[in-house]
């Protein structure tokens, strides 16, 4: 960033350790989130922090960024010990965090969001135009074309994530922590982000990369540090980095059958979508999902996949067309009616759409089986026990608060609720988002069992390997239209990416 003109500072020595965390420990109540963890990042290095959910990655990230104070341990920058615990201190020493949850103020301008770390002191004047001017070069750096004075909420989804990165860059950091920065991005925006990270790395900036997507680590990281249950279990250098190695260190065992599609006889059409006109779509769509079949809807973020699922599930009202299950036409725009016909949805946003977060496991499973007059606690308990058994939910009991469960187990509770209604068709929207490798494998297993029982599954996932590994058939959406259908045999990552990006069949051949 601040290099002398005409000089390249591209290849700085990677060896000198700059930011070092030593013997970091942190306990929450009885949970030991981190135990004596060592971690370091050098200048111009991208270090991946890998681990299952609950392994302590985000806790470590927050401690390094000063958002959380450690119980013990030290953090040093160039050998100077830091006393962290306040974000301001870390920012002043050149450490910036791009947090897992979106952290924008949607009603402030793009410039104000970017420069949030550099607002004037409380009693000092604020000059809108100067801030807009300051934000402009940062927007250029992150390759977002937008008026810095416009409200943040006017940005497109992909741009928002990049603006969040711009916000981190605004504090002129030397170290940037990216906590699941790609989890809300489509493939094209991920590529844009990676280009940016590589460029900044060449300028000597360092990154701590936290992601659930193993291929991203392999593609980008110089080194990966693996955490398991709050402890550091190992480190992989660039040449040792591959998905299997990371995954097996994360779970502590070899993962076989990671993507396992069982061979199941395909039956008669179960879900029939006919000329369904989803709100905002340019044309109606039609397709079938058969008994025992898994059909994946592929496409970029914003291609309209979730909208299709939510329209079928009754969460959105279609502008035309019909959906029928097992020969019965589904009522439109009423989730209650659709569930009654044997179709349930595992929604995309677990916390916002899937769970009552202040409640317990039992009530979350039983939600939807209540009658107005009388809640039957015995039946609720039965359903909850059955879900915990069948889904192998790791919980202290069916009365345990839902927040005490890890993300993967929370997701299993949502799926468990859907299965408690014994659906014929299951709609899964990003069922593995934000859950760890071990839990993913269990969800895949479960999907396998469900189709063996003759159910039909319509799946949306942003992970192409999941699409390829699980689906019998793949429908590719682009700008809310179905632009291609691929059989399991014909599908490949390149092919799907090509169609998702708006390519056409003729050009491909």
């Amino acid at each position, binding site marked *: 960033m601040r290099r002398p003109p005409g000089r390249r500072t591209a290849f700085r020595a990677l060896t000198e350790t700059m930011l070092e965390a030593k013997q970091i420990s942190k306990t929450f109540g009885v949970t030991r989130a981190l135990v004596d963890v060592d971690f370091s990042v050098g200048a111009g290095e991208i270090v991946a922090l890998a681990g299952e959910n609950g392994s302590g990655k985000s806790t470590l990230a927050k401690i390094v960024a000063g958002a959380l104070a450690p119980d013990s341990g030290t953090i040093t920058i160039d050998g100077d010990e830091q006393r962290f615990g306040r974000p301001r201190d870390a920012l002043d020493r050149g450490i910036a965090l791009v947090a897992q949850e979106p952290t924008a103020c949607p009603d402030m301008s793009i410039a104000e969001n970017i420069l949030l*770390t550099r607002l004037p002191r409380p009693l000092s004047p604020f000059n809108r135009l100067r801030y807009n001017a300051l934000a402009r070069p940062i927007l250029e750096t992150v390759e977002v074309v937008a*008026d810095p004075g416009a409200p943040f909420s006017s940005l497109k989804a992909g741009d928002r994530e990049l603006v969040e990165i711009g916000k981190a860059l605004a504090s002129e950091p030397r170290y940037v922590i990216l906590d699941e920065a790609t989890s809300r991005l489509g493939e094209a925006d991920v590529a844009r982000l990676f280009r940016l990270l590589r460029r900044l790395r060449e300028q000597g900036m360092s990154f701590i990369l936290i992601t659930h997507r193993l291929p991203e680590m392999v593609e980008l990281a110089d080194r990966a540090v693996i955490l398991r249950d709050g402890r550091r279990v190992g480190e992989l250098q660039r040449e040792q980095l591959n998905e299997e190695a990371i995954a097996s260190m994360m779970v502590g065992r070899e993962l076989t059958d990671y993507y396992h599609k069982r061979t199941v006889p395909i039956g008669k059409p179960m879900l029939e979508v006919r000329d369904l006109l989803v709100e905002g779509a340019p044309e109606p769509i039609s397709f079938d999902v058969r008994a025992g079949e898994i059909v994946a809807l592929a496409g970029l973020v914003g291609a309209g996949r979730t909208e299709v699922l939510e329209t079928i599930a009754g969460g959105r009202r279609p502008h035309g067309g019909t959906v029928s299950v097992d020969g019965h036409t589904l009522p439109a725009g009423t989730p209650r009616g659709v569930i009654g016909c044997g179709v349930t949805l595992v929604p995309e946003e677990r916390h916002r759409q899937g769970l009552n977060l202040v409640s317990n496991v039992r009530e979350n499973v039983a939600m939807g089986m209540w009658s107005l007059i009388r809640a039957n606690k015995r039946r609720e308990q039965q359903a909850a026990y059955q879900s915990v058994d069948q889904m192998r939910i790791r919980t202290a009991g069916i009365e345990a608060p839902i927040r005490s469960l890890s993300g993967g187990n929370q997701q299993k509770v949502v799926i468990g609720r859907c299965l408690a209604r014994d659906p014929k068709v299951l709609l899964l929207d990003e069922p593995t988002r934000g859950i760890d490798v071990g839990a993913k494998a269990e969800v895949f297993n479960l999907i396998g069992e469900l189709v063996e029982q003759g159910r039909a599954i319509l799946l949306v996932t942003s992970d192409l390997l999941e699409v390829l590994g699980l689906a019998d058939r793949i429908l590719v959406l682009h700008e809310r239209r179905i632009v291609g259908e691929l059989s399991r045999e014909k599908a490949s990552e390149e092919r799907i990416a090509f169609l998702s990006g708006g390519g056409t069949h003729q050009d491909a051949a």
Partner: protein
Amino acid sequence: MQPEAEAQQTASAGSGYLVNRAQEAIGPYIGILLMLGALIILFGVLQGEDFINWDSPKSILANNAILLILSVGLTFTLLVAGFDLSIAGVLAVSGILVGKMLTSGVPTYLAMVIVLVGGVIFGCLVTGFAIAKLDLNFFVVTLGVLLAARGVALALTNGESKSLFEYKSLNTLGTGAVDGWSYLGFIAIGIFIAAVLVMRYTGFGRMIYAVGGNTEAARLAGINVVWVRIAAYGICAGLAAFAGFLQDGYQTSANPDTLKGIELTAAAAVLVGGTSFVGGVGTMLGTFLGVAFIGTIKYGLILASSQINQYWADVITGGVLVISVGIDRYRRLRKSR
């Protein structure tokens, strides 16, 4: 990338850009401006010259100056995603204390400074501290303070009001006017303008929006979230205490029961003006328009009292509150598509 950016810039410079900007600037106020306009036309048609003359704004401003001051204070707390139910209680205690101080010989302006500073300190150390630092729910805390403060005001006076008729400077401040424009109005407008400047042109103002818009983001950006929220409650309580002083002058007495329920009228004004309960959304100008709206209804209906029962004012305010929030929601929904 580069040519694209340039194209965008040139497009931005065109007249379409200005129109967009103007739309953006007026957008949040369209609902309230339309309704205020409709109201003025309605009363203009009903009352003719009785309504359309300079006495109307003079009178509306004088009668709603205290409401404006309270509403400006309340806007601070709403913008940090909170609320302060206790303003009427703080106002009452402040009014009683001013009365007590004056009768025991404290000079008027010293009494004013004492309640103003006292109000800020109380808002920071009690309400603000409990909400921002101890993380207690703002509704519970300020409801408790409202009940307790009103109780203190009644207990201190045995429920009786006391005339402050002989305190000249207080009464001049509360009832005096230049050319029909009341001193109270000038004070309220001054406070309003100061608040606008603070919100738009100081770091503190932007921090208020950041904290209300996304508390976690503000914290991670190094903003002292606790202090910003405490300051918001301090300002709100300080303005309420100051309003208590002015109210003594306005009615030339210290009354422990004064302005009961004004916190809800002030809330209606702030909300009609487009400020949102979720925090980070809203402006002081909106609050001003909200107060103007409520003041105009009341004044107009008093003028028209031979034709319409003036108690309809609250019915109209209530209805308009819900409708204007509805309009705002519809506007946001359309924008987000």
